[in-house]
């Protein structure tokens, strides 16, 4: 019995290692792996394997995250879970100092925050000219166009041929939309209440 258990444990450890390779290394043009790919490689208990991996990487301030193509899914079905994309993301957050060291200027971060918050308020879609107009309130015009192109290139925002912008895969994977909106709307509330 003990030997059998060890064998099972070994198989599980191997599956966790496989999951690490699948999730950490970029296999496609975009990072992350679809649920069905994980199921194919890890077996039917793939979700348990991800839970184990999530626990193991917690001390490193990392987590297994999933993002759905449809942002409004609250209680996903098995099919939606298999269709979701899974990533490894930072469990905590970064401060401004760290953000600067990984190549983000404060203007760029604020521009992205405003674009994302604006698109969320518009149910995830708005014409590019409208987003540009909002950004131009606080950023010079040449910088607005440059930044929007950069956000599109990085996968945070997308734009279709009609010039309509939407939240792309990286925003769905990396940004806690609810928290961002709450923080923006709640800004200065405490001071005002006091």
């Amino acid at each position: 019995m003990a030997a059998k258990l060890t064998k099972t444990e070994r198989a599980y450890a191997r599956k966790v290692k496989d999951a690490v390779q699948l999730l950490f290394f970029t296999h496609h043009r975009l990072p992350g792996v679809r649920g069905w790919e994980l199921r194919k490689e890890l077996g039917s208990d793939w979700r348990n394997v991800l839970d184990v991996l999530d626990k193991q990487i917690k001390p490193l301030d990392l987590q297994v995250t999933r993002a759905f193509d449809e942002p409004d899914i609250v209680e996903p079905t098995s099919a939606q879970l298999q269709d979701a994309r899974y990533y490894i993301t930072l469990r905590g957050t970064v401060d401004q100092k760290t953000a600067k060291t990984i190549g983000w200027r404060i203007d760029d971060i604020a521009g992205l925050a405003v674009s994302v918050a604006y698109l969320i308020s518009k149910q995830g879609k708005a014409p590019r000219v409208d987003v540009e107009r909002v950004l131009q309130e606080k950023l010079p015009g040449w910088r607005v166009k440059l930044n929007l192109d950069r956000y599109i290139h990085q996968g945070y925002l997308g734009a279709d041929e009609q010039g309509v912008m939407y939240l792309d895969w990286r925003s769905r994977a990396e940004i806690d939309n609810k928290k961002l909106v709450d923080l923006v709307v709640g800004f200065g509330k405490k001071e005002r209440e006091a």
Partner: protein
Amino acid sequence: MSSELESVISLCRMVQSGRIEPFDIDFDYVMGVIRKHYPGIKNVKGFCLDAEALKELSSVLERQNQWIAHKSSTLYKDPFMLSQSLMRMDIGAIADAFLKSWHPVVEMEQISARTLAESLGYWGGLIPLDERWQDLEVAERETGTATMQEAYDLGLILTEGFAELLEGFWRELGERTGVGGVIDYWDWIGADTYRDTVYRAYLTVFMVSHGYANVHHDRLLEETKIIHNPEPRPDPEKPKVSLLMMVDYEEWRLWRQS
């Protein structure tokens, strides 16, 4: 008449592109326009326009439904309130709010020791360019003729069509595994010579991609199985499955010894 329908269609499309809110569209008015024009339709173009207007209107209804769902969700905040807050905040405060809700993706790009060793092996076996690009020594030869039989004997022309060849191969698989049966990949492709083994692997790839057989690869056990398909599906309309199969010489030698 058509211009009124066309303007209704373009109005509905403005909702899709986010230029106007879903509830800015008066459903009864748009439906009224469609209903008014329906009896006057005389040709296919008119029907198409009518159908398009209905389709766009149904998309508006879908967006209205999503709008209600979004508004009732915890994520909903009044856009006006949101934009006012953004206006009040300085750039530093906006950046701070973003960073508190940002969990960047972690990804790695790294070459493994194994890939490096394999690449070195490849480099070692690579013939230098000056040797590879040497001028070809061409000798003039008399042209000759060959009979059809000689071409068959030399293997330049197949004695049967490729489809027949695949079907024959599929029948052989069925005989060895039984209908719908399973066989280990190496037991199936393995032959007395390496050349024949490669030939069988080559045909197997086509057999799988054309729907005559299936393949199952178990990554954990590192096993590959070929599964006989009781009903072949060589449908030319269906996309073909691309399959990569390794026929490693060392592996063949080990298989032969075992």
